[in-house]
């Protein structure tokens, strides 16, 4: 980068680079949650929380010399995973996506979250980016959000000597906007225990599978009610509206019905209708509307197939039992 330092004509990008190099930005590493909220309370407006930092160096946020970067990557309180009263799973948002993917307790209790975190960026990003960063950025394309919406998660935020809790979706107030106040940090997500056997999928469409930001995504979580039908169906869409959406229209289509091709088609059509996407740098509204339907179709066929397989296995086991 040194070679670029000469007095050349600068385009916007270069100017930004130079600014990045020369502006004096304050930096502080804090390791206690309480210290973070205290700090935010006194210096909030200019502070930028940096958990993994994987987005800050890409994002459209040129630093200014007023900024204070607060490194929260070493706040151990944000990395806890516990199962509390009533089986509620609490996941600290300081965990990286890969830590979530590899966590055995989360595997058992919130597989859908793992499926979604496993599709964030590339392995290089997943090793650095955190759940809290994904939530705090509040991008409608944040992959963890549709999954958490299906899981009925609640968001706990810590402020100076107080805590608040939100329904996941009410926490997001617009693209890039959350209900967080200046002195607050996202602390954990709370995921209630689910009964019965779940089926789930997370599907996303993007530029390339190895590393991309979603053009559209679909998460589904349901209970296997009978060998052929689902109940308690939840479907959420990412990147097709200003914030992540739950789609009751689709949930109703699927509730208690057999997963036949006709029902799947009906659900996909409802899904495309419910999407409210825009044209932007990543994709067009038209494509997004079509592709969410296609993603849902793909996922539902996989589930139908999986359920059929389980049913066949169950039957043949029964037959074997009878013969014996």
């Amino acid at each position: 980068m040194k070679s670029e330092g000469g007095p050349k004509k600068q385009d916007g990008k270069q100017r930004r680079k130079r600014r990045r190099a020369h502006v004096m930005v304050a930096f502080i590493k804090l390791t206690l949650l309480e210290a973070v909220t205290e700090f935010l309370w006194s210096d909030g407006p200019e502070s930028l929380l940096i958990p993994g930092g994987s987005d800050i160096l890409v994002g459209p946020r040129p630093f200014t010399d007023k900024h204070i970067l607060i490194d929260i990557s070493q706040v151990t309180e944000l990395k806890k995973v516990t199962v509390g009263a009533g089986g509620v799973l609490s996941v600290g948002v300081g965990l990286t996506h890969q830590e979530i993917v590899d966590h055995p307790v989360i595997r058992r209790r919130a597989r859908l979250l793992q499926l979604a975190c496993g599709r964030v960026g590339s392995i290089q990003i997943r090793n650095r980016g955190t759940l809290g960063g994904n939530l705090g950025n509040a991008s409608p394309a944040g992959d963890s959000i549709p999954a958490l919406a299906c899981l009925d998660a609640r968001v706990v935020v810590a402020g100076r000597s107080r805590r608040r809790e939100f329904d996941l979706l009410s926490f997001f107030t617009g693209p890039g906007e959350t209900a967080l106040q200046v002195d607050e940090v996202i602390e954990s997500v709370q995921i209630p225990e689910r009964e019965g056997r779940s089926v789930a999928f997370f599907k996303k469409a993007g530029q390339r599978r190895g590393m991309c930001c979603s053009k559209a995504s679909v998460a589904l979580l349901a209970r296997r009610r009978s060998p052929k039908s689902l109940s308690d169906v939840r479907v959420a869409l990412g990147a097709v509206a200003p914030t992540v959406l739950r789609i009751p229209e689709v949930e109703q289509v699927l509730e208690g019905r057999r997963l036949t091709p006709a029902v799947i088609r009906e659900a996909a059509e409802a899904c495309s209708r419910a999407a409210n996407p825009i044209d932007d740098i990543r994709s067009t509204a038209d494509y997004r509307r079509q592709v969410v339907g296609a993603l849902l179709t793909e996922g539902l066929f996989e589930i139908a197939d999986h359920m059929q397989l389980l049913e066949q296995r169950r039957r043949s086991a029964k037959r074997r039992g009878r013969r014996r």
Partner: protein
Amino acid sequence: MKITVRLQINGAEARFEVDSTERLVDTLREKAGLTGTKVGCGIGECGACSVLLDGKVVSACLVLTAQVDGAKVATVEGLGKAGELSDLQGAFVREGAIQCGYCTPGMLMAAEAILARYRRPTTEQIRKGISGNLCRCTGYAKIVSAIRKTAGRRAIQRSGR
């Protein structure tokens, strides 16, 4: 604001005065003189800047050096010994997994992360493990086979045969 950061790079302790917004890849290239790590895109898309940070593969263009004080960093310079390629590097050469070579340092580090995680990775695991690294020359097949063969050799070495 200048921050003093200690890093252990390829086993050697080093101290740097860095700017609060300095990227790890710049610290490595400009301050430590380790230019093996490349910058392709600078925005986390290509994986050319991949290094191991405390054993995990990350894009060094997306890491603030100030954040990783005390960390262990492994770069391509740490593979092999002076004048001698590592087993993985040798396999890359033999398999023809290198053409222009720009992706190679990052690819090698991603490969080491795969080999550390799985003793005998499947093709699928290898492909997934390097899916964050772009190579515009080789078409990946030879890279995958170089990694697979290295895994095989290491497994044999471990079992002491």
